[in-house]
């Protein structure tokens, strides 16, 4: 079965026209999750105001169509939410908002959830806050391999 046709229209839309793609100059929090070895890295930037409301969210993603689409949707979903509400943007919520994902792509939505959490953790650390229910991110991004130093092109 081909992947593309298994993507919903919403997924294809968020892949082709990703919302909030880019960086934030001085983010309140930034989190990077995933693993280049596995082919997915998501980085999320959050701008959070004094009322603990997410005013801006941006992302950069190295990954497949679903990874890009879930990142895009995740930024959309957290925008305007309080930090506590943002914590409830689960992978399920992202998937539902995208009208579903093919089974082999479910891990991308998990990554999106983790990216939000990682950015919030960073925000909490920077501001010396304790956010109820937030766990420290598992940073499993691989060491950059030494291919290029070893003469790889």
């Amino acid at each position, binding site marked *: 079965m081909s992947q593309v046709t298994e993507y919903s229209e919403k997924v294809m839309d968020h892949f082709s026209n990703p919302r909030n793609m880019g960086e934030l100059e001085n983010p309140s929090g930034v989190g990077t999750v995933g693993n280049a070895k596995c082919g997915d890295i998501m980085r999320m930037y959050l701008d959070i105001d004094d009322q603990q409301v997410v005013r801006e969210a941006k992302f950069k993603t*190295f990954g497949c169509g679903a990874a890009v689409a879930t990142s895009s949707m995740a930024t959309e979903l957290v925008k305007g939410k309080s930090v506590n509400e943002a914590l409830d943007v689960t992978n399920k919520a992202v998937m539902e908002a995208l009208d579903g994902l093919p089974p082999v792509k479910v891990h991308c939505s998990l990554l999106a959830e983790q990216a939000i959490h990682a950015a919030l953790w960073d925000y909490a650390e920077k501001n010396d806050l304790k956010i109820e229910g937030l766990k420290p991110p598992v940073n499993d991004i691989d060491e950059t391999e030494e291919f290029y130093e070893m003469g790889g092109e």
Partner: protein
Amino acid sequence: MSKKIYADNAATTRVYPEVLDAMKTYFDEEYWNPSSTYESAGKAAKKVAEARNVIANAINARDKEIFFTGGGSESDNWAIKGVADALREKGNHIITTKIEHHAVLHTCEFLEKHGFEVTYLPVDEDGLVDLEELESAIRPTTILISVMFANNEIGTIEPIAEIGKIAKEHGVTFHTDAVQAFGHEPIDVEAMNIDLLSASAHKLNGPKGVGLLYIRRGTKISNLIHGGGQENGRRAGTTNTAGIIGFAKATEIAVENMEKNNQYEARLRDKLIERILEEVPYVRLNGHRERRLANNANFCFRFIEGESLLIMLDLKGICASSGSACTSGSLDPSHVLLAIGLPHEIAHGSIRFSISTDTKEEDIDYIVDELKGIVERLRSMSPLYEDFVKEVG
């Protein structure tokens, strides 16, 4: 979408009208079972015999050494399991490479669960097998060497004649998966000392679901599909007349035009390679620069994941393929790209263009022009690129 460029001919090819024409009658008018006794069936049988002859001639084999199968995967399975079963008493060691098609690799893994030992030879950064390494891997218990003729992902053509010579000197049966090479590269089973060879019709503008195993006379090999007496008692199943006749027609056309086609394709391929290497930064050509299939160009674009690239190309009407894991649902990228020494991260960003004589020069330009924009866009989205730029400054 108006533009449509098919650059995935290594996956499968368009059935030529001449091929379909040759097949058609054998569906509805001459639908006879060629094993039957009556005269009409004899016509079908004769056509199949002619087809066998055309195909045998294409690789300098004898008619009786060609056995039709249900495709390249079946042929690979048959060759490897068939020899393993027939020579079980003689030994339990098989030599193959890390870059074989899964039809070979997974069959070998299956045999490993059944008491066989398999050496998976490494390859160099161009995908070439080292002949000395191969020779020194041979043990007294080695019963089979299986090395592909040309790699389906990176296009590298292996030194088959040299391997055949080594195998012969050591009295080891030699199988080559020539699914990508048959009809594309000159093959001579005698000169190259090939004992077993797999091919598949749909890689050369023939139909899907029909392939062949060449079995050198005298080669010890058990059957894989037991049953009726078809294919000289070696491969059961009602003869796929239409498929076989289509396979032969495709072979005829391929062999006749091989040189011309290869020249044409190689010229376009080289243009594609040269423009991309020149105009896109942080790109790597995978596979050997010269010893490669005329229709294959495979690249890794750093900081980018293959599936995204593929979909973006698709949105521009370009059909290509990727060794990215994301298309397969596994986490590891192509075993071939890993075998030539690429780190996972780079291997994930691979794309294969496999062109054909249908490809026009302007298609190449279109591909490169679109690709440049897409790569740039995906890099602008990539946290890896962001980090790289920051590091480099």
